[in-house]
């Protein structure tokens, strides 16, 4: 079981010119592995993540989540599949303001239609050091705390896949390592992990590593 994309292409208009962010890309995100896509800024990594998560529909090509072909689905069905199958940690601060960390997690679980085993979730909460932050509003959290809370939120829905865009960005080495450990444990539990990053430490922990340049993807390492 995996997420597969075949020959996907996505173009944008930028300053009146057409810009191809993702160009004929095929990729597989298997369960039980950490897949890392690295590349320079503007290379199309985040667009690729959004296409694979069904948040953007490609102009060409197709994406399968397990046996379901995403581009053929209606928006509502894609939202449902995403909520159930993929936990996402975006690059930017993504905790919902006005809701505590605990409520953010509960909200994610209500979209997921299921929840991670409580004992396992408690383990991740402790492991990522946010047990004292569960009843705190995002506005009172530091950037690193928010990122760790967002990771726990993504894990909390018991999704089959976890996608993270620059998960270790702006984090100190210790916290970056804690997050990577959490992803490794998730992969060991059978989840498919996709990480988009600039961070060489993340690249080192990849099972499968891709490099993206000008919308093209090349495979560099298969573990």
């Amino acid at each position, binding site marked *: 079981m995996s997420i597969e994309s075949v020959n996907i292409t996505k173009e944008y208009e930028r300053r009146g010119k057409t810009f191809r962010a993702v160009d004929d890309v095929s990729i597989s995100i298997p369960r039980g592995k950490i897949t890392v896509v690295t590349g320079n800024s*503007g290379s199309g990594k985040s*667009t690729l993540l959004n296409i694979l998560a069904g948040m953007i529909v490609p102009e060409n090509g197709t994406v399968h989540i397990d046996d379901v072909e995403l581009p053929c689905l209606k928006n*509502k069905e894609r939202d449902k599949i995403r909520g159930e199958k993929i936990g996402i940690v975006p690059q930017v601060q993504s905790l919902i*303001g006005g809701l505590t960390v605990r409520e953010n997690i509960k909200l*994610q679980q209500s979209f997921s239609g299921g929840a991670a085993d409580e004992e396992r979730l408690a383990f991740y909460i402790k492991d990522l050091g946010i047990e004292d932050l569960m009843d705190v509003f995002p506005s009172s959290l530091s950037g690193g705390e928010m990122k760790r809370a967002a990771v726990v939120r993504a894990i909390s829905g018991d999704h089959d896949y976890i996608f993270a865009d620059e998960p270790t960005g702006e984090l100190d080495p210790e916290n970056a390592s804690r997050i990577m450990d959490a992803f490794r444990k998730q992969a060991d539990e059978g989840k498919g992990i996709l990480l988009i990053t600039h961070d060489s430490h993340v690249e080192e922990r990849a099972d499968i590593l891709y490099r993206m340049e000008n919308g093209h993807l090349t495979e560099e390492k298969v573990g």
Partner: protein
Amino acid sequence: MKIREVALKKLIYGSIGGSAVFLFALLLSFTVFAGRILDTSLTRGLGNLRERLGADIAVVPKGSETGYQGILLSGEPVECSMDRSLEDELRSMDGIEEVTPVIYLASLNASCCSVPIQIIGYDPETDFVTSPWISEDYSLQLGNGDLIAGANIALDGNNTLTFFGRTYDVKARLNRTGTGMDKSVYVTFDVMEQMIADAREKGIEFGDGSDAGITDRYVSAFLIRVEDGADADVIAGRISRNSLVSVVQSKNMISSVTDGIGIISKILTIITWIMEIIVTLVTAILSVFRVNARRKEWAVLRMMGASESWILRLILLENIIMSCAGAVLGIILASLAVFPFSVNVADAIGLPYYGPGLPGIIKVSLLSILITLISGALPGIIAGAKAGKTDCYVLMRDGEN
């Protein structure tokens, strides 16, 4: 986590512009509630006036028409007298079914009188106007020396009223009508005879200033009921030939009051509609502003698996909660502004004013809430639909492609 929990939490801890929606909802609700209560009260006052007028025509001394209308509409005290000999002439006219004399005497704003009000004397033998609704409220007939007070008359501590230095027991108090009748006291002619004599000692002249039997010779007005099928206009015209009297037709007075209330009602309706439109537009602008300010939030929610309809429902619910809270507070504030000062409002308007009972207030409250909710919900639906369409791509704007 239920959507209503999210909406409430967002409004309490993370709202952008929610308090403005609340404030405008409050303003609309206040306007609708106060306006409808005023309108309903005037309409009910008119109904009571129409119901209790009793007579088709009033014959008053020349120049006293406005004073007579003031007694009925706002209870403004007046005093007038004319020769009672006209009574027989009126009784003999074709088309007239009943005639009864009344006497209007104004009490003084002085230590000899409890309150400066209108005292209305009626003749129990011929009366067809006052007695029916007194007996409607009380199963009693006024006897010698009895006095009945309107609903707005403040009685002395021991249920008495003093007029021109003499104290009277108040036998009963009438139900509120919202008309000038609430500010009057009612006495039979024999009591009125005594009052006129006492008033004379205080310097108030009624009739020719003679003593006993004054009510046999002088009255303030004749109230007339015309026969079925008779033309009141023709009869009024015939009476008007007497140069010493003026004629007030009830239908004309009612019509003029109805017109006055109609104008006020139209103004209130226009104000309500203007407020409705303004508040709906402002709420729409605020909602669009709030939606734009929270674009990243919608994108995150979409990313987490929220559907377009979920986001629409969230924004709609937020608007409904704020509108509902604003509406309820608006009703409470309007109640505090309208009900304690209803007597002052009635005095200022100079028209019959009879506030609605609890069922009426509940009805007006529900209407105010409904109208306020509509003006909050419609922009909520539009803004919610816009928010639901937010592309998750917004999330990448801070990052790269």
